[in-house]
C-alpha cells in the first residue's frame, strides 16, 4: 500500500492550487491595470485626434481668432503667442537651470548641495496655480498683463525640471574624464566648459525639450498673466499674448458647440506638439542611457 503512493507528491493539492490561483489573479489584475492606463491614453489621444483633425485646415492654422458670434476663424495668433511665451520661458529657465545644476554638482560644499536639491524639489512640487498667483501679485497688479509676466511664470515651471535633469546628466559624466582633466592640472572652469559640458550637452538639451513640452501645455500660470488678449497676431511681449492653453480653457467652458470644435482642433495642435516633443526627447534619453549604461 505504501509502495503505491509516490514518496514525493508532484501534483499540488488544494492548498498549492489555491496559491497558484491567487498568484494568477494578482498577475492578471496588474496586467489589467497597465492595459487600462494605456487604454485611457489611447482613448484621450484618439478623441482629440478624431474630433480635432476634421476641423484642421490651412485657413484654421493661419487665420485670426474669431470675434464673438463669428463662424470660422483661425488660431495663428495662439500658435505664435504660445511660441513666444515658451521662448521667453526657455531663455530664462535654461541658462539658470544649467548654472544651478553646475553649482550643485561642481562647486557646492557638501552641506549646500542638498539644500539646493531640496529647493528644486519643492519648487517642482509647487502647484502651478500658486505660481500664477505669485506672478499676479509680483508683476500683474498695477502694470497689467503681459507676455513677459506669462513667460516668467512658465519659466518657474521649467526651471526645476531643467536643473534636476541637468544634475542627473552631470552625474553620468564618467569620473575618469574629470580625474583625467584634474591630473593634467587643468583649472576648474576649463574642465567644466571643455569637458563636462560638452560631454553632457545632449542630455541637457533633451531635458530642456522635455521641460519645454511641459511648459507649452501649462494653462494655470498664464491664467492671470496672459489671458485677456487681442484676436490678431501679437508680437510684442509687452502686451498679453494669445496662447493655446488659455484659449482651449476658455472655449471648453463656453456653451457654444462651435467653440467646442475649435477647442478640439486647438487641442489637437497642442497635443501633437507636446507628445512629439516629449517622445523624441525620451527616445534620445533612452538611447543615451543605453550607451552610457555599459
Amino acid at each position, binding site marked *: 500500500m505504501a509502495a503505491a503512493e509516490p514518496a514525493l507528491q508532484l501534483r499540488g493539492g488544494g492548498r498549492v492550487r489555491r*496559491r*497558484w490561483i*491567487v*498568484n494568477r489573479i*494578482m*498577475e492578471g*489584475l*496588474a*496586467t489589467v*491595470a*497597465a492595459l487600462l492606463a*494605456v487604454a*485611457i*491614453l489611447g482613448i484621450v*489621444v484618439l478623441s*482629440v485626434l478624431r474630433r480635432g483633425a476634421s476641423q484642421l485646415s490651412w485657413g484654421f492654422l493661419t487665420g485670426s481668432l474669431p470675434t464673438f458670434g463669428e463662424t470660422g476663424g483661425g488660431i495663428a495668433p495662439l500658435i505664435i503667442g504660445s511660441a513666444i511665451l515658451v521662448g521667453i520661458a526657455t531663455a530664462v529657465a535654461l*541658462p*539658470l537651470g544649467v*548654472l*544651478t545644476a*553646475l*553649482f550643485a554638482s561642481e*562647486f557646492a560644499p557638501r552641506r549646500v548641495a542638498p539644500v*539646493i536639491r*531640496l*529647493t*528644486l524639489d*519643492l*519648487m517642482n*512640487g*509647487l*502647484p*502651478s*496655480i*500658486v*505660481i500664477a*498667483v*505669485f506672478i499676479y*501679485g509680483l508683476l500683474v497688479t498695477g502694470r497689467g498683463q503681459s507676455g513677459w509676466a506669462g513667460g516668467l511664470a512658465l519659466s518657474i515651471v521649467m526651471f526645476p525640471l531643467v536643473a534636476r535633469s541637468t544634475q542627473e546628466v552631470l552625474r553620468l559624466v564618467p569620473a575618469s574624464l574629470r580625474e583625467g582633466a584634474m591630473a593634467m592640472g587643468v*583649472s*576648474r*572652469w*576649463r574642465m567644466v*566648459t571643455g569637458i563636462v559640458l560638452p560631454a553632457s550637452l545632449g542630455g541637457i538639451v533633451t531635458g530642456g525639450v522635455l521641460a519645454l*513640452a511641459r511648459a507649452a*501645455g*501649462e*494653462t*494655470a500660470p498664464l*491664467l492671470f498673466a496672459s489671458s*485677456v488678449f487681442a484676436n490678431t497676431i501679437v508680437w510684442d511681449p509687452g502686451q498679453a499674448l494669445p496662447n493655446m*492653453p488659455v484659449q*482651449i*480653457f476658455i472655449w*471648453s467652458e463656453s456653451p457654444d458647440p462651435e467653440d*467646442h470644435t475649435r477647442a*478640439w482642433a486647438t487641442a489637437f495642435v497642442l*497635443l501633437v506638439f507636446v*507628445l512629439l516633443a516629449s517622445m523624441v526627447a*525620451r527616445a534620445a534619453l533612452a538611447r543615451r542611457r543605453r550607451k552610457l549604461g555599459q
Partner: protein
Amino acid sequence: MSTLPATETLRGRRRVRDWLGDRILFGLTFAAALASIATMIAIAWKIFQGARLSFEEFGIAFVWGTVWDPVKGVFGAGQLVYGTAVTCAIALLVGAPLAIAIGLYLSEIAPRGVRGVIGTLVEMLAAIPSVVLGLWGILVMAPFLGQHVEPWLHRHFGFIPIFGGSPQAGGSGMLTAGLILAIMVVPIIASICRELFLSVPRELEEGALALGSTRWEMVRGVVLSSTRPGIAAAIILGLGRALGEAIAVAQVIGAGIGIHASLFQTGNTLAAQIADQFQGAVSKIQISSLFYLAAILLVIGLLSNLLAQWIVRRFEVQGSGI
C-alpha cells in the same frame, strides 16, 4: 636660459586667466543657485503678503468657514477644503492601487520587450496637458459618467449617501473631478513605484522564489514589504499633484456651491476656485481671499512634499526616482 622669463610670464598670464575663469564661473553658478532659493522665498513671501488683508479680517477660521459671499464680502474656504479633500480622496483611492499594480507589472511581470513600450506609454499619460485632459473630461468622460455609470451606481448603491443624489446628465461633479485627478496621479505614482520595485535586490526576490513562493507571495512578502515607506512617499507626491491641479478640475467639477454628501453633485476645490474667480474678483478683500487660498495650497503642498522627502530619507529608500 633666456627663454625662461618668457614662459614664466606666459605661465603667469595663464594662471591669472584660470583664476579669473574659475571665479567667474563660480560667481555665475552661485548667483543662479542663489536666485533659485530667492525665488522660492519670494513666492512664499508674496503669497502671504497678499493674503494678509484677508487673514486680518477672517483669521485662521477662514480655513473652515463655509460662507463664500462676494456680495457681503464674507469669505471662507470650508467648502473648498471639503471639495479638495473629497476629490483627492477619490483620486488616491482609485489611482494609488492602480498605479502600484502598474509599477508591479512593469517591474516584475511584463515581458522584457513589452516593458519599455508600456512604461513609455504610461509616462506619456503624464505628458498630456491638463487643459486637454480637462477638455476630454468635460466633453467625453463627464457625459458618459452622467448618463451610464452614475445612474447605475445610484440604482444599485443609492442607499449609501455618497451615491445618494440624483445624477445629472452633463456629468460635472466631484466624482468626475476625482476620476480626472486619478488619471493625472497614476503615471506619477506608477513611475516612482517602478523604480522602487526595481531597486529591490535580486537575491531577495530569487531567494523567496527558491523557497517555493509563488510570484505574488514573493511580491507581497519581499517587494511590497521592503518598499512600503517609498510607496507612501510616492502616494504623498501624487497627492501633492492632485491638490494643486486647478485647470482640469475647474473644467469638470462644475463650480458648485455648498457641501453635499453625494459625489454626483457639483462642488469646487481650492485650486479650481482661484482659477474660476480671479478675473471676476473686484474687491480688495476678495482678491486677498484668493491669495489666502493660494497660501493654504502652498502650505499643504510644501508640507506634503517635505513629508515625502523625510520618509525617503528616514527609511533610506534606495534608488528611488523621487
